């Protein structure tokens, strides 16, 4: 499978009367984009904003983010959300660098909000902590239609507090569709222009003797080609597919700091790193995705066994494994570590520290084999963020009191993707 990513650098974006790209500046027809988004009756309205690095802006209620990408025929852009149900990871993909599409919205009926808040700062120390402090962002602030705010509807009841009502799930999916339609629309506009850079992703045969590495990827709140992984056995996926739009975040009720956005999948740190060293330092054998978490201990055991079995089928002797976060997911995550090490597969874990006060070890579960951990930082620590001139995405935080534009002592857990176990960021934690 060979994927060719053609990147065009976008210096700036502007909302205007026509969509065109010239001199590195992407102008977006505001009316046309609104029409595209409001095709879905889930939305009563959408506000479009362009924000740039350094702007005194705080974006709140962020749900997901994506980088503009488009796959011309016969490829499919963001399959099942935008494009037809085809697999991706090969052929050509047009990509825009320097820009991102973000979605924000208030909560709808039956949508739990205790892990929903996510913040992106465009200025100050918070800007460096998320990927989006460095990109020019088109923010879609979506307003749900009245029916989605109607708590008396039967489909607004919460059957399962972890995922929310079926109404909330549908709304969240609509939001991703709007976001990804926009992302594809932008990339397609620029796509015909000469690429500034072309990068090829191909797992060419590696010289013998290099360590054979697999990546165990625990998914939470994400879909694979639109399919939620709940209740499914682990499965093999090609790293190109992860980079090329196969994995989309669909659940906003996941800690912002370790919510692996669609954007973070498109830029997956561990996959990019393993690719960069493929053929030189290691033989990257593939990616094994699996869900977090089952409620049943027998299922957890089986899932871990099966994931490690897939690794063995790929001839792995080494592995990286990322933890999605959460209490119960920690069990299958650690069981995979234990079984992997016992199968002779040397395993390094990448984990956000989501619990604990500074003196709390913070492990909800661990196995003695978990001796090689890279931390993506402790999310219970506080970041000091400045007051900003403008807040977009909402009027008030879901669960933090006071005006969102004021100076904040905000837990790292609210900063979108700052501690993603995809490994994109530079945060860590140290013991003193």
């Amino acid at each position: 499978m060979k994927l060719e990513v053609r990147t065009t650098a976008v210096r700036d974006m502007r909302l205007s009367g026509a969509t065109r790209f010239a001199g590195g500046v992407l102008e977006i027809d505001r009316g046309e984009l609104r029409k595209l988004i409001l095709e879905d009756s889930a939305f009563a309205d959408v506000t479009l904003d362009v924000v740039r690095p350094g702007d005194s802006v705080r974006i709140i209620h962020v749900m997901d983010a994506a980088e503009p990408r488009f796959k011309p025929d016969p490829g499919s852009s963001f399959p099942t959300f935008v494009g037809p149900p085809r697999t991706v990871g090969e052929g050509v993909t047009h990509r825009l660098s320097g820009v991102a599409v973000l979605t924000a919205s208030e909560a709808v009926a039956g949508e739990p909000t205790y892990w929903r808040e996510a913040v992106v700062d465009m200025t100050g120390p918070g800007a460096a902590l998320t990927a989006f402090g460095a990109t020019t962002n088109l923010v879609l602030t979506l307003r749900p239609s009245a029916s989605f705010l109607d708590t008396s509807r039967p489909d607004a009841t919460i059957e399962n507090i972890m995922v929310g009502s079926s109404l909330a799930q549908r709304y969240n999916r609509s939001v991703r569709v709007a976001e990804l339609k926009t992302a594809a629309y932008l990339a397609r506009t620029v796509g015909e222009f000469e690429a500034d850079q072309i990068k090829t992703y191909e797992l060419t045969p590696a010289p013998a003797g290099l360590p054979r590495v697999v990546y165990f990827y625990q998914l939470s709140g994400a879909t694979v080609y639109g399919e939620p992984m709940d209740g499914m056995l682990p499965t093999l996926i090609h790293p190109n597919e992860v980079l090329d739009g196969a994995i989309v975040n669909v659940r906003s009720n996941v800690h912002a700091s370790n919510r692996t956005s669609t954007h973070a999948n498109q830029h997956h740190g561990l996959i990019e790193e393993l690719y960069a060293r493929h053929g030189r330092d290691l033989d990257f054998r593939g990616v094994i995705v699996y869900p977090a978490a089952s409620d049943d201990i027998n299922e957890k055991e089986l899932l871990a066994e099966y994931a490690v079995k897939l690794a063995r089928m790929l001839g792995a002797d080494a592995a990286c494994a990322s933890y999605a976060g959460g209490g119960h997911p920690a069990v299958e995550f650690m069981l995979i570590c234990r079984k992997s090490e016992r199968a002779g597969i040397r395993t390094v874990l990448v984990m956000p520290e989501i619990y604990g006060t500074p003196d709390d070890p913070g492990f909800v579960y661990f196995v003695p084999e978990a001796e090689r951990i890279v931390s993506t930082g402790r999310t219970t620590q506080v970041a000091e963020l400045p007051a900003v001139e403008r807040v977009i995405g909402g009027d008030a935080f879901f669960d933090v009191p006071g005006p969102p534009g004021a100076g904040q002592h905000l837990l790292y857990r609210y900063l979108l993707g700052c501690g993603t176990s995809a490994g994109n960021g530079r945060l860590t934690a140290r013991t003193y």
Partner: protein
Amino acid sequence: MTKLRVVHYVNQFFAGIGGEDRASEAPDVRAGAVGPGQLLERALGASAEVVATVHCGDDFFAEHEDEAAATVLDLIARHQPDLIVAGPAFNAGRYGFACGRVCRAVEETLKIPAVTGMYPDNPAVELYRPSLYIVASGPNAMSMPATLERMAALGLKRARGERLGEPREEGYLARGMRFTEVASDSAARRAVDMLLASVRGEAVLTEWPLPDYDRVPPPTPIKDIRRATIALVTSGGIVPKGNPDRIESTYATKWKKYSLAGIKALTSDGWQSIHGGYDTTRANEDPNRVLPVDVLRDLEAEGAIGRLLDQYWVFVGSGASTTNARRFAEQMADELRDLSVEGVIFTAT
């Protein structure tokens, strides 16, 4: 520039008074540096001086800890020091506890920085490590010069209010406080580097050390359960309906106790689960599914147990045994003993 004033605390041996035969010596003070204090003074350099040496017999301190600590504190305070250096105690247990107690008193009461030194296996380390700066020494006085060097360097930094480096750099025993920082490379790069190094057979340092496993021997079983008081404890977040104490499913471990007096069974009207980590629908339909009050009342009525304690404890949080959680659990265990509880049933989700 005036020199920083340092007071050195040592035991009877290092004060040159005597060995085990003089371990019952009461606290006292001598001017200037004594014995290893002279090495300490050299290590401190020109910017500081040891103005006094306070000493106490290890047995005296162990047998009259409160009184000894108060006297030592008073003797120290009189010299208006900027820094206290205690020991190093190496692997000596009584001396270690004395140094730890003195340092803690100095920090808490006099608000003056203190530094001590101990061998990591010194029994006093477990107690004092989280709250003090303990420089790691060797098991005996052979490591005196090197240890004093590091104690002096660390002490000067603390006295000047300078930022401390990581425990490994500064030579002190990690206190177990974790802080988020920005690394020079992405987590992905660090992970693949760690993996390749490990595969090559190199020793790698984890970024997140595991807590120590500690196995507790199983307590003696209950002799006569039909006369026993049994208590219920849960981590499943069961609280009175309406969550009157506004407990949140937080990260830090928090505890609450609630009355079961007159309660024959939990009901969905009266109780709910506030745990954020699992789907609470089933627990809210029937809270007995997490806290089995109903069947324990049945068993109580039948005489299968003596009685169900008329209060239960609920906790939220990760539940890992941290310093605070451990202290609370110790208090709770004392309470359980005072209430003559002979067995605990703990339910977890």
